[in-house]
C-alpha cells in the first residue's frame, strides 16, 4: 500500500492547508494577544506546524508495518514509544539548529521552550497515530470492497458462461453426415451447407466474447441454424416468422434463442412423422422485446418431464442478466408448446 499523502493529492492538499491555517492563526494569536516577538512566533510556527508535519508524515510507515491485528498490544506500545522518542529527538534537534542563529546569547527562550517541546512531540505523535490508523483502515476497507465486487463480477461472468448453450453434438454429427451424403449427390449444396455450418459455428463461438447483440443478428443466426436443419428434415420442418420491423435494433443476449429452436426441433420435429411448424412472433412494446415461440408436438409419444436443461439455463441466464425471474414463460397446451421471452430494453424501441 502506498503512502496516503503521496498517493492521494487531495488528502495532501488538505494536510498542507490544515497546517498552514493553524500556523497563521498561531502567529496572529501569539503576536497580537500574547505579545510574543514576531521572530519567535515565526520560529515556533515553523517548528510546530511545518517541521513536525513533515517529519510526522513518516509515522504512516510505523503503522503500515505494525497492523493492529497482527502485533500484540505490548509490542505495539513499546514500538511506538521508541518511534515517538526517535522522532521527538530528531525534531527537537533540528528545531534547535534552526533557532540558534536567531536567538541572542543569554536569552532564556531556548531553555524555556525546547524541553516542553518533547511533551508536545509525544502528544502529536499519538494524534498522528490515530489519524493514520483511521486512514489505513479506510483504505483497506475500500480495497476490500473493490476486490469483493470484482470477485462477484467474475463469478457472475463464469456462471453466465456456463449457462450459455453449447453446440449439440447430435446436431453437429448429423449435419456432417448430411454433408457427406450431399457430396455424392449434390456437391454444390454440400458446399453451401459447409459454409452455413461454419457461419453458425462462428457465431456460437463468438458468443464467448460479447453478451448483447442486435436482435437482427441473433435472428440471422437462427435462420442459418434452421436452414441447416431444413436440409436434414426437409418438409417436416416448417418455420414461420412474424416480426415487427422495428424490433430489429433491439438488444438481446446472444445465443439465447438457439436452444429454444433446438428444443422445438427435438420435441416437435424429431418425434413425429408429420410436418411441424415452428412459429416465431416478435413485437416490441415500450421498453420490452417480446418473442413467442410455438411448436406442435405429439403428446402421445412424449412425456415432457418438466423443464429440460436448455430451458432451465435460459431462465437462469435471463435472471442473472436482468435480475428478474419473470421473463421466461412456458405454456404447455398438450398439443403445442409455447415459450415466451420478454427482453427488457435500455431504450424504448419504436
Amino acid at each position: 500500500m502506498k503512502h496516503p499523502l503521496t498517493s492521494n493529492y487531495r488528502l495532501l492538499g488538505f494536510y498542507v492547508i490544515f497546517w498552514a491555517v493553524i500556523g497563521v492563526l498561531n502567529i496572529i494569536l501569539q503576536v497580537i494577544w500574547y505579545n510574543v516577538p514576531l521572530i519567535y512566533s515565526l520560529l515556533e510556527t515553523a517548528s510546530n506546524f511545518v517541521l513536525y508535519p513533515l517529519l510526522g508524515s513518516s509515522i504512516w510507515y510505523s503503522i503500515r508495518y505494525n497492523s493492529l491485528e497482527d502485533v500484540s498490544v505490548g509490542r505495539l506500545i513499546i514500538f511506538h514509544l521508541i518511534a515517538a522518542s526517535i522522532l521527538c529527538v530528531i525534531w527537537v534537534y533540528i528545531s534547535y539548529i534552526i533557532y540558534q542563529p536567531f536567538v541572542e546569547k543569554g536569552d532564556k527562550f531556548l531553555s524555556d521552550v525546547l524541553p516542553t517541546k518533547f511533551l508536545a512531540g509525544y502528544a502529536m505523535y499519538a494524534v498522528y497515530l490515530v489519524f493514520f490508523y483511521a486512514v489505513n483502515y479506510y483504505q483497506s476497507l475500500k480495497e476490500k470492497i473493490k476486490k469483493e465486487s470484482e470477485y462477484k463480477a467474475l463469478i457472475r461472468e463464469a456462471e453466465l458462461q456456463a449457462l450459455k448453450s453449447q453446440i449439440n453434438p447430435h446436431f453437429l454429427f448429423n449435419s456432417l453426415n448430411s454433408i457427406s451424403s450431399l457430396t455424392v449427390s449434390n456437391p454444390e449444396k454440400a458446399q453451401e451447407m459447409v459454409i452455413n455450418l461454419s457461419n453458425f459455428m462462428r457465431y456460437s463461438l463468438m458468443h464467448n466474447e460479447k453478451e448483447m447483440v442486435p436482435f437482427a443478428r441473433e435472428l440471422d443466426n437462427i435462420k442459418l441454424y434452421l436452414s441447416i436443419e431444413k436440409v436434414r428434415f426437409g418438409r417436416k420442418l416448417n418455420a414461420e416468422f412474424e416480426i415487427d420491423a422495428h424490433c430489429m435494433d433491439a438488444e438481446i443476449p446472444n445465443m439465447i434463442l438457439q436452444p429454444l429452436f433446438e428444443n422445438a426441433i427435438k420435441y416437435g420435429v424429431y418425434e413425429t412423422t408429420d410436418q411441424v411448424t415452428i412459429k416465431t412472433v416478435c413485437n416490441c412494446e415500450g421498453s420490452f422485446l417480446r418473442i413467442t415461440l410455438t411448436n406442435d408436438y405429439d403428446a402421445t409419444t412424449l412425456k415432457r418431464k418438466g423443464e429440460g436443461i436448455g430451458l432451465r439455463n435460459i431462465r437462469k441466464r435471463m435472471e442473472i442478466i436482468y435480475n428478474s425471474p419473470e421473463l421466461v414463460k412456458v405454456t404447455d397446451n398438450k398439443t403445442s408448446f409455447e415459450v415466451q421471452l420478454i427482453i427488457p430494453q435500455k431504450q424504448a424501441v419504436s
Partner: protein
Amino acid sequence: MSEKLQTLIIEDEELARNLLRSYLKDHADIEVIGECENGFDGVKAINEKKPDLVFLDIQMPKITGFEMIELLDYKPQIIFTTAYDQYALKAFELNAVDYLLKPFSKDRLLSAVEKVQTRIANEEDVSDKLEELSNLRPGQEFIDRVVVKDRHKIHIITVDQIRYVESLDDYVMIYTNDGRHMKQKTMKYFETNLDPKDFIRIHRSYIVHVDHIAEIQQYEKESYVVILKDKDKTKLKVSKTGYKKIKEVLHF
C-alpha cells in the same frame, strides 16, 4: 456367397438414406429390398420381409431403434447407424452388432458388412445379444416410455400411465389406466430403468407406481398389502423388503 443379403434400411433422414444406398449400390453381395422412414414401418417391414440385414438408425420419430428391436418377432442381423451416442461404446463392448458412427466412410461400412457375412457363415445367433443390448440404459437417464405390440398395433405407453407391472414367467404384464399389455422383458429391466422415485418394487412379482397407491394395509403380522386407487381396489402383496422401500420413498 451365392445369394445376396436381403437388406433393409431404416433411417428417418432422407440424406442419410441416400448415402447408405449409394454406398451399397454396387456391392456384389447386397440387395436393398426396402427403406423405412420410421420405426413403425420398420417393425412391419422386418416382420413381413424377413431381411437378412438391417441398417438401423437409433434416434427416430415415434419409437427409437432400440425400442423397435423389442417389438420384432424375427431378429435379423443389425448394423446400427447413429450420430453420437453413449450406446456406441457399450455396443462395441458387447460385440453384438456393428455400430457405425455418422458420418462414416464407405470402407467402414464395407467392413461392417463383412462382419455380418462372417457371422452368418458361422451361423451365430445374435438374438440373445440383441436382447442384452436393448436392456441397456442410455446414460443415467430413466426411461420415459415403454413400447408394446399386440396383434395389430404398436402402443407407446408413457411411464406416467403405468399403474403397476406384474411378472409372468418370461414376460411382464403392464397395467395402465386403459388396460394391460404384455411385454417380453424382465422385472429386473423395469426395476433398473424406471425412476425409483416413482416406481417401487414392492414384491418379487410387482412394481407399482407410487401415485396409484391408495393405502397400505396390514393383513397379517409383518405382512402388508397395497390397495390401488382404481375402482376395483386392486390389492397387491408387499414383501418385507418391499415394505421398507415404500417407507423410504413415501417417508413415513
